[in-house]
């Protein structure tokens, strides 16, 4: 008995790693119309957010205000 959504906010049994594996296979074999597929960059960002998102956002929540000046500068 498991939940539908995992602790990483991914779908149980349809995780991002499984998608990455099939996308990799799709590079070498025709697997059909996937409307352009997931894209490596999108996959990378989502893998990061699913697996390392929590510590990242914890850091941001606790110390994010210190980055305000940097953000303002980047925005300019």
């Amino acid at each position, binding site marked *: *008995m*498991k*939940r*539908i*959504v995992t*602790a*990483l*906010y991914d*779908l*149980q*049994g*349809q995780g991002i790693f*499984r*998608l990455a594996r*099939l996308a990799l296979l799709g590079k070498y*074999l*025709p*697997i*059909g*119309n*996937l*409307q*352009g*597929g*997931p*894209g490596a960059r*999108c996959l990378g*960002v*989502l893998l990061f*957010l*699913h697996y390392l*998102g*929590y*510590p*990242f*956002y*914890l850091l*941001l*929540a*606790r110390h994010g205000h210190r980055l305000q000046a940097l953000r303002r500068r980047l925005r300019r």
Partner: protein
Amino acid sequence: MGRQDFREKCVAERESTYQTMNVTTYYSLPALLLAGRQKAAEKTVVSFDLFDTLLIRRIHDPDLVKLPVARYIARLARSVGVACHQHRVQELRDTIEKRHRLETGQRFVDQEACYPRFMEELLRHIFAAQYSPELLAQVTDYELTMENSMLVVRDPFKVWMEELFRQGKRLFIISDMYLPAMHLRRLVDHAGIEPYVEAVISSADTFLAKASGKAFAMIAEKYGLAPQDWLHVGDNPISDGLRPVEMGIEALVLSDVGEAQRKSLVKRYYNYSDGKPFWRGRVLQQLMAPLEGEDRPQSSLYREGYTFLGTIIGLFVQEVARHCLEKGIRKIFFLSREGWTFKRYWEQAMPLLYPEGGLPEIEYLYVSRMALAGASCAYQGLTKANADIVFLPTGNRDFRDVCRIFALEIDPLLPHLQRYQLEADSALSPAHQGYTPNNRQMFDALLEDRSFQEEVRRQTRIANEAAVRYFESVGLFAHDHIALVDIGWLGTIQRFLFETIAHRPDCPTCHGLLFGATRGIPYPEGGKNLLRGIVYDRYRFDFAASVIIYAQDIFEEACRAPHPTLNGYRLTETGAELEFRKVDDDIGKAEVEQDNYFAPLQQGIFDSAGRFAAAAALLGYQLEDCRGWMNYMLVSKLAFPTAREVADIRHLHHLDDFHGGRKPQAGLTLGPVPLWRERPWKLKFHPWLRLRHFLGHLRGRINQ
């Protein structure tokens, strides 16, 4: 360190104090609740912020809920002859709301807006003389329904509120929101926390908001609350932190890191779906996913039903609706027995997807191949194509099987067989011993024999009359165009059904909409008899969707209605009665066992319907938008399943009277073992098994 340990550590290190504000921020809900329970013990009043505190949204951006409402208004406008695109509606709404906020800002500190006021102005602007208060009520109702479908109560808060209520504390909900309190009450009621709350206060009613702190002063005065006895909980460091503290109210601020991660993911999925259509189905699933207390531990079958089959069936049903509206079809018949699931899904999903109505009528039609096969011969006789269908399953061998399927009495037909040197037991299927090509040639010649066909017509006339009477009683002839929705695969039921009614002058045009059309034998399309596979159609090259062939029985078993198959129709004085198959024999018992096994799977499918509809309505996506993701799911789940998935979803029994029970000749029917029939150890340990099957399937489709 495991993820759970890491979270616990974070909870332990929870507090970070704003030195200047003296407001404590908590980075997880358990941490806040721990502190909240201690602090509330000394207080008599506890107030809560509503959005992102008590209720969380499935979507990252609350403004996205406005989009389906704009679409709804645009459709309503179109229905009364006013052309106003949804983007224009949204633009107007934003402009009017902004102006209202600026006007409020001239009289009050806070720049608030009130939904009934700006929505009335918007609707008056679009509908002009056709505006009515009922229209405003209708739009408001849909907006609140959409809000409710996207909002989820945080279970731990609900439990805490119940505790506080039992302790006799006075509980308030305070929100800075354009919806007035009477609308917020509906959201709170839907969340199940309304009984605990003394009052719901919205800035839309008084234009005094938490953001300026004016709301707290007004509430304290109106309800006679003392700040020192008051604890406020919210998520905004200013509105829910600094402002109440300035008033002398103790405040707890929640900055939930888990929520930030979840919303960030939804945001990425949503943004990616804009530029990369592949992600559209994924964001749909992310919004469909249960949250908080909705997400209870479930069996693997339930999960597959919810995420895999539920999503695909939802897209299928949505496409059926779109197709029928486009073609002007006013009646849909969901064919038994798989149509039972599609109809139930339709009933749950369509009110959110098409709130303005205008959808075709729906009806569940009791049919089966066995019930219709005989009736189809009453006017055209037994055609070669129909006789060929009998010998597709290897369980059928000879003329006795033909008679069983077409409900023919064999004795009056024997003299006709003898004229063609055939006997009742002459093997007509190449899968059986004794078969000769000559037998089949003779049988084909028999089918062209006039006296044989006359006898077939005579025998099947009553079955046809009974079937037609039943169809009359359900209004099948009352429309010029009807849709027949079924799981698939050859379209045999529709073929027999159409042939049963084709002789009638009022025979409607039948638009067959199949989940998957594998078209093992050519379908007699044309004129009033049309067929289309929606998820998969062999006539439309879609390699990824063709993997449905890997395990098509699963879809059939998963969607099957919990009633026995129909054996036929019986004429009565007033019309026709349905005759169902008995359930106490081996096949009947096996079906019941299979149904019981797949019950959690079906429950998962039905539970997903409402959430699918809400997510699809919000995103505005349909099957073609999500085809890439759907194809990925099909390939991933059917062609590259895990051993555990095969073990769980693989059906125990798939039996059918149509298939017959004869044993084919050894060696003749043994093709490669399908992937879903491979032995568990092979599925678990064979490294190239799936790839080998996949390449075989690829070769098969290319050669097709």
